């Protein structure tokens, strides 16, 4: 029995590819399987090849598999583009409608199934997604009843007839494959553990995290692959008295966020590389005025418009060092969908605590891929607005004087006060200023204010800045950031099975950088390999910039696609 397999459906954009994958993934997720879903799409509205790949497993996986076990093709292009991923003796199910031609020179099990015809016979051609899922069920030896609860949830409102039609289409697809009499027993899927979990994307988790963290305003401009966060909050915020405003550009999105934060709201905006570039001046304003905003940067292929629908991790330099002048920022990089949720909640609290611009960096693979994750824990969600002025402090403001919003404090954190509060009147400016926010050019105050802002992270070691797993007595240390985490783990497991001693250090907070901890892991390794999805080895350079010393080797990939485990495995084999 298989404990994991890889399945893909492909066709033209707008042809029901996503729904086919979603029905299969959601239903199997409900039966206790772990799913990793990766969408391949083009920068087009309709038409163009698209596919949805599912990794179905009995243990948690965060990566695409090296090869494909089952491919469902709605057109010949899907076969031509994807058949090379099929493993020896894999299964190809193609719609008979387009007279599919099987790939040459490859031993596969080929099923030409009248997907569209069966769907039409059962009521409508759009149900070819159901027929495909049925065919898949037959290959995997799953009962078609596995899918019933999902169909009832999805179509129940439309009446019993619709549910039955879909069920019939599903059964007919399964029956057709079974009737071919081809041996599929090697593809029987081991049972799932029946546990209830969630299945969602990083973008959804970031949106949900924001909602739970008390974010009530979001000015944002649409951009791939970040728009889902905005769309999530457009659905959710009106129910809790909040609001998403679609701005004219990212400059407005960031500056409006700053206005809202100054006004007293918890606020976020979301974007990708081009938008992050436009936000740079505003990030400086947030920094010098100590007005906390949370920015999601879902990285895609850069520079410039780059590859809008492709994966990359190349905004780290921009996020860390972008904006002129010198400010502190919080830069967080979750590695999994689960971390997207919890780290988003953390980010809002940390932003308020340190009163700095805060950037949550995901990447396309993390933001748009679905993962099976444990249910989120309500007890881990808390809201802490940080240092707010007390009633006593406000009452103590002498008449005719301004409140010391930028009071020099030992830890650099001054009391915040929001417009509307009596005794709190003060001025805020992007010009260098004194304790009440008045513009100054005095050299001593300037120096003191800079120090106050820049020293906020002195001696601060934020929890969960990194994670470590693998062998404690490792020879080789693998270092990564973002969505590469699960892929590195799979490569590591294979090498461990061959007797290698390997550790995996994953960086979760890039600023303030956990230099000391990272150095201690690096120092223990004979070899260090930093693995990332950019061309210039940004993470490696960031480690060195932060003073981590070691003989770093670098594996980079910047062709627009995430790693598959064998790429990392093979690279390490060749290194040895």
């Amino acid at each position, binding site marked *: 029995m298989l404990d994991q397999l890889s399945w893909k459906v492909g066709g033209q954009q707008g042809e029901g590819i996503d729904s086919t994958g979603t029905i299969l993934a959601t239903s199997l997720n409900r039966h206790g399987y772990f799913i990793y879903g990766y969408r391949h799409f083009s920068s087009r509205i309709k038409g163009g090849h698209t596919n949805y790949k599912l990794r179905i497993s009995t243990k948690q996986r965060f990566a695409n598999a090296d090869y494909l076990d089952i491919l469902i093709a709605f057109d010949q292009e899907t076969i031509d583009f994807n058949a090379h991923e099929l493993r020896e003796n894999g299964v190809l199910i193609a719609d008979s409608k387009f007279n599919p031609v099987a790939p040459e020179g490859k031993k596969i099990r080929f099923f030409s199934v009248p997907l569209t015809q069966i769907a039409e016979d059962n009521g409508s051609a759009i149900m070819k997604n159901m027929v495909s899922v049925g065919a898949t069920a037959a290959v995997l030896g799953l009962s078609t009843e596995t899918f019933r609860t999902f169909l009832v949830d999805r179509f129940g409102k439309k009446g019993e007839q619709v549910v039955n039609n879909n069920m019939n289409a599903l059964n007919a697809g399964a029956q057709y494959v079974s009737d071919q009499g081809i041996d599929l027993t090697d593809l029987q899927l081991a049972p799932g553990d029946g546990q209830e979990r969630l299945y969602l994307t990083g973008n959804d988790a970031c949106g949900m995290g924001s909602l739970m963290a008390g974010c009530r305003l979001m000015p944002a401009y649409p951009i791939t692959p970040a728009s889902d966060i905005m769309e999530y909050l457009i659905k959710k915020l009106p*129910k809790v008295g909040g609001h998403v405003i679609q701005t004219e550009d990212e400059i407005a999105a960031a500056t409006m966020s*700053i206005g809202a934060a100054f*006004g007293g*709201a*918890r606020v976020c905006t979301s974007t990708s590389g081009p938008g992050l570039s436009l936000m740079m001046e505003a990030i400086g304003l947030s920094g010098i005025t100590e007005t906390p905003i949370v920015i999601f940067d879902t990285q895609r292929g850069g520079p410039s418009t780059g590859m809008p629908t492709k994966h990359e991790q190349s905004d780290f330099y921009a996020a860390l060092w972008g904006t002129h002048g010198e400010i502190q920022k919080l830069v967080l990089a979750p590695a999994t969908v689960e971390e997207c949720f919890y780290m988003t909640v953390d980010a809002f609290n940390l932003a308020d605590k340190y009163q700095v611009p805060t950037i949550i960096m995901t990447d396309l693979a993390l933001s748009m891929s679905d993962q099976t994750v444990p249910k989120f824990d309500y007890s881990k969600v808390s809201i802490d607005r940080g240092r707010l002025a007390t009633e006593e402090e406000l009452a103590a403001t002498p008449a*005719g004087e301004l409140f010391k919003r930028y009071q020099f404090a030992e830890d650099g954190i001054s009391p915040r006060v*929001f417009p*509307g509060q009596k005794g709190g009147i003060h*001025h805020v400016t992007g010009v260098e200023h004194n304790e009440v926010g008045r513009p100054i050019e005095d050299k001593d105050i300037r120096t003191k204010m800079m120090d106050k802002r820049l020293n906020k992270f002195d001696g601060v070691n934020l929890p969960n800045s990194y994670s470590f797993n693998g062998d404690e007595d490792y020879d080789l240390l693998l270092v990564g950031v973002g969505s590469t985490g699960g892929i590195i783990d799979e490569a590591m497991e294979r090498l461990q099975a061959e007797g290698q001693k390997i550790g995996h250090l994953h960086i979760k907070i890039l600023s303030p950088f956990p230099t000391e901890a990272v150095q201690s892991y690096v120092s223990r390794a004979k070899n260090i390999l930093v693995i990332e999805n950019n061309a210039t080895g940004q993470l490696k350079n960031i480690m060195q910039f932060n003073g981590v010393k070691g003989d770093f080797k670098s594996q980079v990939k910047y062709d627009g696609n995430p790693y598959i485990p064998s790429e990392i495995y093979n690279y390490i084999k060749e290194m040895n």
Partner: protein
Amino acid sequence: MATVKDFRNNVRPNWCPGCGDFSVQAAIQKALAEVGKEPEECAVISGIGCSGRISGYINSYGFHTIHGRALPVAQGVKLANRDLTVIAAGGDGDGFGIGLNHFMHAARRNMDITYIVMDNQIYGLTKGQTSPTSAHGFKNPKSTPEGNIENSLVPAQVALSAGASFVAQSFSSDIKQLTEIVKAAINHKGFSLVVVYSPCVTFNKLNTYDWYKENLTDLATIENYDATNRIQAMATVMEHKGLVKGIIYQNENVPAYQDLIPGNQEETVTKQDLLISEEEFIKTMREYA
């Protein structure tokens, strides 16, 4: 109740003696007191330029932002706390050059804020370059020594086409009219634009106090002028190349942005309880199960 004194502070503006902006500052302070606001209920959000310093010269919450971005910051403040009186302010370069995009979108969005632009038809703080409202042919030793070869922008025309629900202009010498117009703008439920011709006595040797006195037409002198008629408003502005003063247009029958927000919050954002109940939390998660 607050008086005009309560809106004053002890900061001496860094404007040149004779600058038109002094009167604008005084008019805003007077208007805020006369419409019955308290200083802590107001936020003045300004841009960059000579006039952008105004947020520091009025005793209220103030935010001196970055060049061209006073309007998005001001709209953010209003979104967070709809109970505040929010005034955005800046100059012609700030609002109609670098910030023009935000100006047009703020006008069509119709959030209940007031935008006061001190238009001196020149860049003052950078010492005298031609601005988007400088006239065609405007000679300026700094940036257009041979005369401005670009056409000037007519802000009121832009505001009317972008759908602003309140468009007015005034002149810094006419502080009585200016104060009344600022009051009307603050009281207007929606986006209100007040362009104030505010001469730069240091760099603009063309558009002087006398020049404005000679060239501005008071709408009160136009027979049967109807400020609720957008077509007449546009025609009048075009006829006078923008050089009018008074309330050009006001539509009191369009709802402000805040009143159209889906799920229209009963309590302003800053007063809400942010924690979601466990029951709601579980319900939200279930969508992904």
